[in-house]
């Protein structure tokens, strides 16, 4: 019997060695594997290369991992945010390496790793400083730069529900990097709201087949859902709104 469920986030991140490359899903708060990142912080691996769209914000999550000096290098598209002070500080002091990749090239390079593509020609970034040193080629009158796959030892992602085979469904734009990172890592750990019985996910609507998934941990329903139905009452970070109509929305950039 296939059972990829594990009992805790701690177990889901077990065995990540020092020096590992770890993909971390999410775009902003959406799809961020919050519990798995916390477990990685507790787990202790260092000298990590993190592949993620952003480079942490505030003082929790990836920012906390970086603040603990556990990250050697970040491969991402958008490290600079209003509250990315942890990354900013480390970068300025030369304590963290950055590979800046246009977001679509980042996504396609991750996809290429999962799909066994050796390299591909992308038109994005050609002629800019981010393609400096890359092999270029003109194909049917258009310039392209050669881009290589980005693989990882581990991927930490978040999905809404999954079964014991690791079949996954996501929610709205929280899908983002999850499906492609799941396929690009040797070991993929997923936090989900809910483990559902095998066979209860419609095979037409499974987004990530269990083939790509190694460990699944149930972390409980996200606070803005109740029994799978959106109930609201939170800010963009998922924090409960202050009571009595002070419902201000947050805007990140």
């Amino acid at each position, binding site marked *: 019997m296939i059972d990829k469920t594990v009992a805790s986030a701690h177990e889901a991140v077990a065995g990540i060695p020092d020096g590992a490359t770890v993909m971390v899903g999410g*775009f*902003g*708060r*959406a*799809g961020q594997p919050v519990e798995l990142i916390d477990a990685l912080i507790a787990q202790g691996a260092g000298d990590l290369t993190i592949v993620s769209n952003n480079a942490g914000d505030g003082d929790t999550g990836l920012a906390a991992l970086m603040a603990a000096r556990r990250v050697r290098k970040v491969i991402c*598209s*958008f*490290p*600079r*945010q209003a509250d990315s002070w942890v*990354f*900013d500080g480390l*970068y300025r002091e030369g304590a963290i390496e*950055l590979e*800046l*990749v*246009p*977001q*679509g*090239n*980042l*996504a396609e390079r*991750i*996809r290429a790793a999962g799909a066994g593509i050796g390299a591909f020609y992308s*038109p*994005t*970034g*050609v*002629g*800019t*400083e*981010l393609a400096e040193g890359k092999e270029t080629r003109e194909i049917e009158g*258009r*310039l392209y730069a050669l881009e290589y796959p980005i693989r990882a030892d581990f991927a930490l992602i978040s999905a809404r529900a999954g079964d014991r085979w690791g079949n996954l469904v*996501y929610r*709205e*734009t929280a*899908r*983002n*990097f999850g*499906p492609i990172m799941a396929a690009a890592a040797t070991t993929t750990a997923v936090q989900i709201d809910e483990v559902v019985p095998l066979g209860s996910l419609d095979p037409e609507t499974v*987004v990530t087949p269990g083939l790509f998934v190694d460990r699944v941990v149930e972390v409980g329903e*996200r606070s*803005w859902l109740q029994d799978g139905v*959106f109930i*609201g009452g*939170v*800010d*963009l*970070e*998922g924090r409960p*709104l202050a009571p009595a*109509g002070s*419902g*201000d*929305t*947050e*805007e*990140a*950039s």
Partner: protein
Amino acid sequence: MSAISRQELAQRIADDIPSGSYVNLGIGAPTLVANYLTEDREVVLHTENGMLGTGPAPEPGQVDPDLINAGKQAVTAVAGAAYFHHADSFGMMRGGHLDICVLGAFQVAANGDLANWSTGAPGAIPAVGGAMDLAIGAKQLYVMTDLLTKKGESKLVASCSYPLTGLGCVSRVYTDYAVFDVTDDGFAVRELFGDTTIDGLRDLVGLPIADFITTPSSGGER
């Protein structure tokens, strides 16, 4: 010469977007354009973090952290929306399936080069996000920008001094003074706002600017 407001400019751009178009509105000022795209026109908004059919911001209390746009703002979904992952989303752009993309700019060169992601300032933390993908990711790239920087320098330039975002990618530039098409021969005025004159524009920009054109732009089209 008079300049129109950013809201008026957003309205002006919205008027130029054909009903039923697939459009990506970049972070910042371009998002204002959405306010003037009435629902009945069914302009389908793409957000590169994995969605077609982005709707207006939710009511207070109805913010959904799973449902955001590329600017990480809360949005809603219209009837007919679809979600997909990042590789599919950028494939859509790179593959030329979007009709129009509207972006901000630091500089646009007469050959259609765009600079909008970095000022190249020493010590700045670089961040590119989807800028370079957006620059090449639509059949038409419209830039929405003030014509002049805060220091009064023209954002339309002979060639970009800031780091490039994309080569020869801009089709049209919407500014607070005028609308310019990028042609094989450089900038050409498409429309003047208020009492703006061509000669006045030439003074502000300091570049050759062709007179009103009547044929569609060719620059930046793919």
